[in-house]
């Protein structure tokens, strides 16, 4: 899991993600350091919410006798949550990459147009 993957996973607005991804590599070291912490914190919180949710659901199932509670409960929840995060990551990264590619294409097109416009005005 990379920091850029996290940007893609987290439920930010797409424009914000694009902005972050675009700026990320050129951020000054101090800002980058702060943002890296923030992103991993947010990822951690996201993970926690997911873990919490999975635990709740498992407990509800356990209430109904559909889930067996034993001393591997927490391990199972961790494993399940990590898998879900991983799945989420794959989906989000694919989506975000497409979106980033789209944004990059648009940028290139804009630049080409701008360039043409400058040439034609000469």
């Amino acid at each position, binding site marked *: *899991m*990379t*920091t850029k993957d996290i940007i893609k996973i*987290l*439920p*930010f607005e797409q424009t*914000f993600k694009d902005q*972050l991804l675009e700026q990320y590599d050129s951020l000054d*070291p*101090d*800002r*980058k*350091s*702060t*943002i*890296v*912490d*923030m992103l*991993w*914190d*947010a*990822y*951690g*919180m996201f*993970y*926690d*919410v997911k*873990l*919490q*949710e999975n635990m*709740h659901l498992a*407990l*509800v199932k356990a209430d109904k006798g559909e889930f067996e509670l034993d001393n*591997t409960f*927490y*391990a199972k929840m*961790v*494993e399940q*949550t*990590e898998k879900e995060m991983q799945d989420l990551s794959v989906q989000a990264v694919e989506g975000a990459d497409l979106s980033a590619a789209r944004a990059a294409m648009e940028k290139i097109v804009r630049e080409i147009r701008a360039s043409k416009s400058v040439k034609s005005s000469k």
Partner: protein
Amino acid sequence: MADIQPPPGGVRGVHKAPESGDKAIFFRRELFVREGGTRNSTEDRLRRERGQKSEFVKFDENLNKQYRTYLQNHAQRLIDATRKNPQLFQAIRHLPDADILTLLTSVRKNADGKEKLDEHNNPILDVSQEKIQKFLEKSQGWEITTKMIEHETAMLEFSLGLNHLVRPPATRNPRPDLRSGLPLNRDRGWLNVPVEDYIGRFLGRRVYDVAGRRRLDLPNIHIAGGYLGIPAIQFNAADIQMWHARVGSAIASVGLGAVGLALGGPVGAAVGAASPMAVEGMVRTLRGGLRMDVRQLTEAFEAISHNTENKTYLREVLQIDLDDFHIVGGVVDRARPTGRSRDIKLIQKDILENLHTREEFYTKGLEVPENNFDSSPFQTVLNYAHHQQVEALDTKMQAELVNEWKPDEGGIRDAGGLRPIDAGFNPNNLDHIGNIRRLMTAQRKVLMKEMQEFLREELQERKVIDSKGPSLEILKEKKEERTKDDGRIKKERAEGLTKRKKTLTEAKESLTTEKNSLNTYNTAVDALKKARQDAQDKYGANDVASINAVITTRENGLTDHTIVGSYAKQARALETARKKEIGKIDASIPATITGKTRINETNIRATNINARYAEQQAKLKEDVYNKVKQEVTELKALRSTIETSQRALEERQTGVMAARIQLESLRTEFSTVADPAAGIDIQLANVGLPVVNLTPAELATQPVDEIFRRIAAANTAGAGLPPPAGPVTIGWSEANLKRPEIRQRVIKAVVEARAQTTENADPTRVGRLPHYNTATNPATWNISENLLRSYSPAELIAEQTRRHAAGLVPLVIPVFTPDQAANAILEAHNRLQVRADAMTKPIEEIDEQLKQIDHDINYIDLKGEVAQIDAAVEVVKRKDYIYEQAASIRINRNRFVDTAVIAVTDVEYTTQERAVATRPKGYFEMLDLMFGYKSKAERGGYFEEIQKVLPPRKLAEVLHNSFGYPAGVVNADENVYLTNVFNRMQTDMTARRMSTVRLQRAMRAVIHRLEDEALALA
């Protein structure tokens, strides 16, 4: 609002009104889904016609204060919780408390500029008013705070299995004609009089001002029992209906349970059982204000009590232990008579304050019509199924909550799992537990989202949010300063240390003054104790009477030959023997010797006998007589010392009076500061302010300057308490605490706390204390502590006997046995001794610190600090990579937590690494992960530097704290300590309990530790 001009320089963010620094003004669209959506159209139109601007909302000074107070209290609670459990918010991450801690606090610094660390080696945090103000300069700050208040209120209420309803369910009926709800006049004029006459007296004067109450102005309600017989009041139909709803059959049938009743106690049988809040709500109803009702809601307790994180959070942050309660017979009851939760009245107070603050935010701040909102933030979850609508707030955060919660599409379900949009949905048989859980989860998510929004704004504004500021830039400057070293750093640091030295010296002087004030008295007590002990050891006597008896016996032995073994008897025996021998001389001389020769022989033999006996007599005298004389002299001297000391300990003596005053003042000042019933903490709690932890235990263990700081903080909080409850004077101000006489008072409290702690830890005291208490109790013997110290056991018994004889003490109170008397006296001495020690030990500690400061002043290692800064910069720059590698620690756990040691012959390692071959191999791997040292050209030399910056103990400590391992893993040997931590990690990873997120957080903790330490370099 007409005079408010648009903020200069743009349309974003919060801008202060020019006329008041405490008014926060926001663009309406920042907070609302629709501009003007909360106002009725007529009002908006009128405003527009008048040319008034409606696009702003403002939070007035009072509301601003309420929010600041809430954030201050909340941040302080978080600080206190993390002081007790540093890993708390790494374990509980479902609320943005870790961010709140970062955003609203600052790290306390020592005089030398270094971060002040607590007992866990974590930086000590203080709430920063400046940061709170900054936080509230953004609309998101207000939104986040409101959500936090709402969430906390729900947690508090649900933890007691309660739910408050401020208006009846009918209020938000979806039918348009009833959207305005029941008439809610602010004041009902004439009705106030009977209401106040008949009800107000039960609630106190504050009922007169119900509508105008402010946060922190909600004293506990006490109803002294009795009946609310108010038949004389003529209510209209609606009022009577409400009356029954509030205190009549509705509440009686629902039942509050023991906990609900504990909120206030029954009002009276005639009207059923109602809490004071219910009664207050009724009053407010009658006066046209908001209505408050309290109902038992065991489902809420169920929903919250089965969640480990909730339980931990409630216990550590909100001080409610859910294990104190359980559900019995459908109501929440106490599970044990005394628990660890704070007083229910305080919880009640927090709930009321939160509800009131929330009310003001919506009504006075956002101007949401009262008809549109519930005063209880979770009323929605209970009413929704009936009304199929949430509060009509039209705020963005409300919209986000609904969007997250999706009540129609699964947020709300009936017991059969059907949603409101499903056919057959049964609104009368709801899955309350699930509904509450789903709403709470949604609430948490929205909170997190709000926080993200806040952080994003900061990013967009290109501001560094982290409280540390641009650390790499600062570290670069620090390194440059040290590299050029023009002597400034050493000078500044020496100045800082000198300042610290001055503070410590002052503290030492204060303690010395305290100690000296007992000197005269202590000298007399010590002299008495020593004389008694000497006399006891040598002569078996320890008081004047018994010494006199010994002297008499000894002196009599010199002259009274009837005393067995006495000198006189022995001398007399010698004389008798001598005479007997002399008498036998003649018979022993042969009869053949006659005349002058016989006489001469007789004389010679007699002379010899006499000489021998004279020698024996002399020896006897020397051995016994002189010794007795010497003993008697010594006994008389001891007697004299005892008599002199006892006279010095008579109650009227100046030294005794001074000591008594001194000892009493220790207790008085201790009570002033730390008495659980009257100290600073309870004074704060009584006015609704957070405590500052001035408990006896804290007083006994914290440094004196920390105690000063907490007292000053309490004083500041009291002074900032808004009227009418405040301002109040609690403790002393920072300025006053600099005055010697005030400092002296605090020092006394500290000394007494330390003494009491020592006493309480003494297992033998329990055997002495009852006799001491009986001796000093005014109702029994009423013998002063001082007199006890002057007595021997026999003297104490004699005094008791005398008092019996004089009729001063009833004969039913028995005279002590010698053992009991000795216990009472020993305890009196012990009480003095522990207090004297409590004054001496801190002085010795300060001496040690002063010695260390002297050393530090003379030894400032700038080269080592440069290496430390370089290492910190390296890990901060590698942070991205290190976090990304967190997963690989688990995958390659056999390498990263390898506890085997490297062989001294293993050429895979450099000489410098092999020099510390006793360290577990995993240590080298962790260092390589953090610093990448193995790929450095100067691997060995670099390793030498970084292993000083991150030695095994430090790594073990950070990992230990981060993973929340038990104290048992700690070991005095740093390699064993780290090995223990590695073993625990290995177990967790093997058992699949160690998530990547936990590992990443641990790595983050290591990085932050190194970064913070480098930044703390003065």
